[in-house]
């Protein structure tokens, strides 16, 4: 089995993944890394899986207590606060965890990157999808439980919510690719990310509806792609609106654009990982 494997120095970035052998390699590596991420992170440790589910549930409980009992925010219109926050909080926490994990994931593969030639984006793909797929499962579980507890949820809304998760995964992967590649060179990315994500959470209508935001600021908050995703999930799961709207297409375009930009950035920087990891 002899196939040409040309590596030209001035090759453009787009041709790296062109050969079919690279694509099949990417697939099998992704599969290995993915299984490894899931096993090592959630199944390998005794409390890992439980903690992955417990963390959002605990946060949800705290927010519920603080907002309904302490602040007495009450319900937003007809919506129950618990269901209202649960639908939006989980995707945010999942994205947050996916981003912070993916940012530092390359360094745990440093030995491999320094000594073997392979498409390194497989590492980021595996890290992000491992986190997000587990949270999708957790999300469905929690929604079912809330429904059984009598919360006003329209579970058929998952028909919209799950494709939105997919859009989310694509977009988050793009951001993760950019952050992971930057982290190799700029070690403080991971530290800056923590407060940024915290601020991001409060600037996204997760704990409050967009309608409560003062009108002057509202377009800015709405411009956040995550606001759109969250709003659509609420439409579907709380109000049972099961039709796609034109804005969903925009969301797809934004997600794909984020992914493409992240991947382009990653590929620009990837040739230098070996030297900086």
């Amino acid at each position, binding site marked *: 089995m002899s196939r040409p494997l040309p590596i030209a*120095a001035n090759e453009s970035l787009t041709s790296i993944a062109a050969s079919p052998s690279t694509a099949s390699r990417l697939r099998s590596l992704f599969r290995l890394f993915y299984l490894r991420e899931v096993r090592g992170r959630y199944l390998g440790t005794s409390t890992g899986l439980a903690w992955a589910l417990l963390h959002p549930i605990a946060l949800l409980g705290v927010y519920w207590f603080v907002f309904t009992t302490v602040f007495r925010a009450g319900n937003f219109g007809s919506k129950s606060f618990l269901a209202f926050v649960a639908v939006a909080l989980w995707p945010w926490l999942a994205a947050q965890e996916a981003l912070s994990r993916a940012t530092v994931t390359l360094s745990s593969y440093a030995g491999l990157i320094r*000594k*073997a030639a392979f498409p390194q984006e497989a590492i980021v793909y595996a890290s992000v999808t491992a986190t997000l797929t587990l949270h999708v499962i957790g999300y469905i579980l929690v929604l079912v439980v809330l429904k059984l507890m009598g919360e006003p949820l329209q579970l058929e809304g998952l028909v919209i919510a799950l494709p939105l998760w997919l859009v989310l995964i694509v977009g988050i992967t793009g951001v993760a690719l950019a952050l992971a590649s930057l982290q190799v060179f700029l070690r403080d990315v991971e530290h800056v990310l923590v407060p940024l994500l915290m601020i991001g959470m409060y600037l996204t209508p997760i704990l409050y509806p967009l309608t409560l935001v003062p009108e002057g600021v509202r377009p800015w908050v709405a411009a956040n792609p995550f606001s759109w995703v969250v709003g659509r999930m609420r439409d579907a799961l709380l109000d049972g609106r099961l039709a796609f709207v034109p804005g969903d297409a925009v969301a797809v375009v934004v997600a794909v654009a984020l992914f493409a930009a992240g991947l382009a950035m990653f590929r620009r920087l990837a040739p230098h990982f070996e030297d900086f990891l």
Partner: protein
Amino acid sequence: MQLLELDGVGKDYPRLDAVGSRVRLVYRLLRGVAPGSVFRALDGITLSMQRGESLGVVGENGAGKSTLLKIVAGVVKPTRGSVQVNGRIAALLELGSGFHPDYAGSANIDLAGALLGLAPEEIAAKREAIIAFADIGDHIDDPVKTYSSGMVVRLGFAIATALSPDVLITDEVFAVGDESFQKKCITWMERYLEDGGTLLLCSHSMYHVQKLCVNALWLDHGKPRMYGDATTVAREYLAFHEAKLQAHTSHTQVIAGDYRITSLQLVPLNHGAEVDPESGFRVSVTIRSPDARPPVVVIGIVRADGTPIYGTTSEVDGVQPRREADDRYGFDLTFEALPLLPGHYRLRAHAMDPEGMRVFDLHEVPFVIGGSTRELGFCRLPHRWDHA
């Protein structure tokens, strides 16, 4: 078709010299602009390998050997030039190369296969053979980070061999592992080379380079210093090191002035640039004597590192010089045959007073004994194999 072809390959590493330079570097890289300040790890490497034509890479530490091997293995993308590989490459770069320390040994087998682009069923088919060759027992299910260095090498070698590579890249990893495993490796290596396998070997052992490789590349500060047949390159490389060592060791105490060598000539009797050990060479020395008395000359041969091999004096041999002028005396001496092995040597001459007591002057002429051999040392001693 060439198995491997490198054309003008070079690699620059960005240098970070100031605070904030990381941000600037990332910005430049993202724009596709070359980094401002770089370290040239490798430059101007052009070479080609055919099937069965193993190549040895030699050079001092930091000469760019590992970078070159990594470029061929595809781990490092060259900054300049092009690399063309027609075949499957397996690399054993350093200890535990390509292993993920947290993965179990068996998971690393899957990983190595996937890295090389093997289908899962191909890997599965080879798994048994790899585990058998590595022979590390139950440890195969433990994470690689718990392995001893010997076990890591065993597994690495077992994987590399099972993947039947067209080119096997390796640096010095054979020195690890116990006796029986080393034997297994050598047996495998011989079979591999016999079957037309090709090695890209990075080694400090000139013996191995000469034994295993057809060609050799000598890297010096990232640049090719010599590229040619392994025997010649190994000989030059050794001579370079001998000469370098010599620079650190002090000379014989020599008194300046008085009796001085005015000329020292070495003429190979085969009239070539290199001395043919069969025909030898002739030496002519002229010494100026301040008091017109006939001086004594010391003539000897030293290795490039200054180790004396043989020396004699006109006084020991009871020879008087030929008088050329009032204060000048000449000596002519012929070495008819030299039992020296190919390599770099120097002819050394001292002037001495007529009593043969004080050494006055030192002159040297370097020379090269031509030919190629895999004998060891620097001098051929007469011998015979009695059972043959």
